[in-house]
């Protein structure tokens, strides 16, 4: 697998950061991006198996040189334990999306078929809509959104990407 196998475009980076689980840390991490005019495409924060440590997974796009700067500054933050560009390792990444689709009776069989192929799960049904939950990598999410588009997507909510390295290696044990 190539070095950037997980980065669909060359300038897209998935960065995982282990930080102290404390107020203000996220603001400090985010400010490193805003100070350089960089948008965060997706951001996912949650506590880890160690309750004092949170894992931030964020996706951003940009010039490799600037991202290297951001990575170094992330490492410098006093309450950062570990930083990793997930694109530099063999990793598995997932995102969950909730999609609310216009679903008049006539269209439902076809919609259900698509959901089935993508191993989605219907989580809510009303007279006019269906809400479906789909988990997958960026490509899969993109594909189902494309297929459902013609029926009329009323609303979506995405969790943002999370990622783990494959195999026994963990971020905590990985070298910066």
């Amino acid at each position, binding site marked *: 697998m190539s070095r950037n196998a997980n980065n669909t475009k060359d300038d897209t980076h998935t960065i995982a950061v282990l930080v102290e689980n404390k107020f203000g840390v996220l*603001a400090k991490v985010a400010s490193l991006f805003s100070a350089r005019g960089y948008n965060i495409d997706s951001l996912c924060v949650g506590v880890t198996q160690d309750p004092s440590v949170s894992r931030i997974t964020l996706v951003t796009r940009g010039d490799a040189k600037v991202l290297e700067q951001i990575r*170094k500054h992330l490492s410098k*933050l006093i*309450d950062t334990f570990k930083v990793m560009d997930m694109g530099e390792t063999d990793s598995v990444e997932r995102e969950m999306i909730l999609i609310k689709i216009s679903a008049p009776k006539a269209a439902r069989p076809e919609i259900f078929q698509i959901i089935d192929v993508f191993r989605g799960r219907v989580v809510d049904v009303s007279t006019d809509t269906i809400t479906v939950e789909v988990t997958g990598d960026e490509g899969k999410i993109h594909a189902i959104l494309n297929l459902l588009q013609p029926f009329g997507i009323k609303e979506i909510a995405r969790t943002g990407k999370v990622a783990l390295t494959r195999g026994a290696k963990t971020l905590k044990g990985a070298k910066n």
Partner: protein
Amino acid sequence: MELNGSQIMIEELKAAGIEMAFGIPGGAIMPFYDELLKADFPHILTRHEQGAAHMADGYARVSGKVAIVVTTSGPGATNLITGLANAQMDSVPLVAITGQVATNMIGTDAFQEADVYGCSIPVTKFNWLIKDVNEIQHVTREAIRVATTGRPGPVLIDFPKDIQITNTVYTPRESAESPLPAPREYPELDTEGIDKLLAAIERAERPVIIGGAGIIKSGASAELAKFAKAAGIPVINTLLGLGGFPGTNELFLGMPGMHGTAYANFALCECDLLINLGARFDDRVTGKVSSFCPKATIAHVDIDDAEIDKRVHTHIPILGNVRDVLSALNEHLRPGDYDEWRQTWTDWKENYPLQYDWDGSIKPQYVIDQIQEITEGNGIYVTGVGQHQMWAAQFIRFNEPKTWVTSGGLGTMGFGLPAAIGAKFARPEKDVWLIDGDGSFAMTLVELATAATYNVPVKVAILNNAYLGMVRQWQELFFEKRYSHSHYPENPDFGTIAEGYGVKGINVTDVNEVRNSLETAAEHDGPVVLNFLVNKEENVWPMVPAGAGNDEMQLAPPSREAKS
């Protein structure tokens, strides 16, 4: 023993060896100030919080020690922001302690509330908001450690009023445990990088050293002198590196970049090996990066990984403390043969000296020359920001490190007077001269009251051209002499203002009185303001226009006659 939050913090500050505090009290910090009365270190009451921050900054640059800056919440704390940003840019340690509204009031737009934690994130090395009295011991220790180790910098502790008066059991401890990873301030010596650099030095024909603030902060001046002399490699000092190498040494090439010496910039353009020791390749040094040191292998020693490869691609990166790296270099140094190169840069020094003309008006460079003469380079020299700062950097020949206090990265006008007061507190036995511009001086001149109150005998030389001189220079050169809002035709009488503050003030209008007035100031037992009405249209030369390469440097108009 049971103590309140304020008492605990002061115990910790004392234990850490804090010797100096600057600040102004207000509502949300009063309990802490009440306890400060019993602290065994002095507190200097300033007139503006920015002044307090710059005083602590000047104090730290000269003493190498960290001071605390104390302000109240809201406006007291927001007034600090410029001072913090200035210290952050120049890697100067200081510990700010700001009062905050009580924890149950935070976020309610309470009186004098500001999100100081949020405001200070980008202008500090690190910051804390204390929400529990039991965090104080750890946070205070951590704050001082973070400020003073690795690449130093300012830190801020936001201290809510209710926590200041909450009691808890306090146990002084030898070492407070830190849940955080061990500090990474002194990376292991990169022997591989050092070997590469040694080989490059041996191979080089035209090597040059550029020494930055890292030389001064790591205490590497002696090692640098040994290295440069043994190798016979000339030394350039950046603005913040001045004093890191003796200004009178034949190997010294002065300052590089926008207002650097011609010979420093020539050397950068022609060298085949650039050894950067603790400088961060600031844009004012490099000019256009694509034409920076075009022929050179670039080695960069820095304590901060984030500085390496930031702006200039480095062939030999060495992460480490400059002093340690220099010691290792000195041990194994095998210099090459640089005789031809020596001849080249010696000729440049001779043929392109710094100069200014002599027309009967008071030339700002002349005043600086005279200050240099009467102090014999043994004073401490402080500046504001602008033309006067560049002239001071060019014309003063520093004998030792930590005798030059100037705002480099942020370029903070108004830095001078408070920084000079802080410097004098740090080294009372030294003559402290502030070389300032009228624009810079006016921004913080209120601290003359502090100099008068505490009888801090700083000597102020205002090079008063009634312009924002550097703006005026750029307008003359790049905006076809459209002097948009850079002129202060109704400048106040700074001599009289000084007298109003209880400070000796002298206006000097005649060039023949320059020397006398400087001597009078030097002998006066107390602070003095000398207001020199200098030539209004003097420009700083040489100059590399903003965005241009160092090879596009403009020398002073060659037709002008040099001062004999």
